């Protein structure tokens, strides 16, 4: 395959992934949570560690560990589905009235070469700025990075794993009733 067509393949893949991630943001902010859930594989791992302030030469201690420590999130699809179900009850007061949320997605990086076969997995990085405003003047801003593993299932990409790196140590918001 020529260089240029290889480049083109990578570009088309990146476009495909961006459309997926923008679509995801659209579903979340339009509160279409059930459709959003369908973007994840059944065996998805959704992990958001906490962060510590440690000396520069001990940065391996910076993050709490998946599967071992207490994290902000460390779960699979079932728990995610319960979160969605809870919001839709209409009596989840923390989201009633519904927050006004905007997911700004930036710096989308596809780290894997376009896969040959129909079924495949690729690694993707992206960054988020989440703006939440609710009730009268309550406003939150959360910024950080995401590391996704995407898997092609029946011809469309699904999120099989997501690591969320929030750029905070003490969480500066009262709750996490939204998704990253």
């Amino acid at each position, binding site marked *: 395959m020529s260089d240029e067509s290889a480049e083109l393949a990578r570009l088309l893949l990146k476009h495909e992934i961006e459309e997926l991630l923008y679509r995801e943001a659209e579903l979340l902010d339009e509160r279409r949570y059930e459709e959003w859930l369908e973007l994840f594989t059944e065996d998805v791992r959704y992990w958001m560690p906490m962060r510590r302030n440690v000396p520069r030469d001990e940065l391996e201690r910076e993050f709490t560990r998946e599967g071992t420590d207490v994290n*902000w999130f460390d779960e699979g699809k079932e728990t995610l589905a319960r979160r969605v179900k809870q919001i839709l009850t209409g009596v989840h007061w923390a989201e009633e009235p519904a927050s006004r949320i905007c997911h700004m997605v930036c710096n989308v990086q596809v780290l894997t070469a376009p896969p040959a076969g129909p079924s495949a997995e690729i690694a993707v990085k992206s960054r988020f700025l989440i703006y939440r405003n609710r009730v009268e003047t309550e406003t939150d801003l959360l910024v950080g990075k995401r590391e996704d593993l995407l898997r092609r299932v029946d011809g469309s990409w699904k999120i099989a794993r997501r690591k969320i790196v929030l750029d905070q140590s003490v969480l500066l918001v009262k709750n996490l009733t939204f998704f990253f």
Partner: protein
Amino acid sequence: MADGRSGSLNGLVDVDNGVVSREIFVSEEIYRREQERIFARAWLFVGHESQIPRPGDYLVSSMGEESVILCRDREGGLHVFLNSCRHRGMKVCRYDEGNTREFTCPYHGWSYATDGALVGVPYAKDAYGEQLDRSRWGLVEVAQMVSYKGAIWVTWDRSAPPFLEYLGGYKLYLDLLLDAWDGREGGTEVIGGIHKWLIPCNWKFPAENFSGDRYHGVSHRSVDMVGIGPSGKGRRDMQERNEARWLDVSFPELGHSMIAFLRKHDSPIAPAYQDAPAVADYFRRCEEDRKRRRGEYWRLFGGPGTVFPNTSPLARQPRTLAVWHPRGPHQTEVWRIYLVDADAPPEVKDFLRHYYIRYSGPSGLTEQDDMENWNYAHKASRGTIARRFPYNYEMGLGRATRGFEDHGLRLPGAITDVTAANASEHNQRGFYRRWRQFMDASSWSDF
């Protein structure tokens, strides 16, 4: 209100009639007075021994508004210091945790040993000659410290009563959190990671809520509908609760309280954790062992509670300890640790860890709604008119009894049996009675 620094709080807190003014939640003056009279004098929780196992280990913690260093010196002794240099106040340790031989100040380089001693002073001889009396300029250390079953408690006030006296009869209930589930003394450990987050409300909203609020079921209705419990339904396994007597236990003269449950005499061990056989087995075995070890006391189990002023054990699964650090009258910083039996099998710890995360804290389906309610209860109480209308704490007034006894089992404290009533505000009244006492007393001798 009268000037919060000196004036009395007459009329603001009337627990006998079950009314408490909103002023105490929103007033700047009262808040400042709380810092002097409560947080500078009371026993406060700062951490757990399992967080700093080795000599030189340290954990930066918080007492009231201030940063403190909890550390273990080279002989393994425990210390808690104000995290501020004696020279110009620089925060000497800006890391959260680690292991060190010394704390060196980044401003001018004074360095302190893990026992707080001022051991390094640049140009000491040339610049200070004999003038500087190092023994007077070590890190500021707490006046008293106790490690009780791994939980470390401290106070800035040397005239404060000893911790066990401060704790009093509440010991029995705190043990429900700190002892192993099978009834052995101690044997719990913290699993990694401290949940730290900010809530826009006064610190007393969560403190009183945990002290004994059985009444806010509507807050969590969505979770009950969705189901996150260990057996897949509701918030919790309910059967053993439903079969038990419900007791609101308070020590009004101390301010401590807990929601407790008492199984029926010879009631069997209720099924639980049906989703997870291994976990179900583990707890059944623990219950049996505890029964053997504790006899009648096996029948007692706990729920949320508060050790005055701002430390809240939650003695059942998810088993946690929360500290409500004041950050101004209108903001609270929560620190939350999670406890497990140190020698529970990995799959049990893992199961519980998942349960903690989906239940507790800012990402917990249950507590997310608590934060929302505390936030807007506080906000809607700040106004000029609102402050003229006190909160209502009448529920279950006058129903408490002392010398509780059930089939020969004696329980300390003033107890309101709410098995039929479902709830009371007995514990909250006890909390504010003690709060009033702290705020009125100019020193411990006045208590």
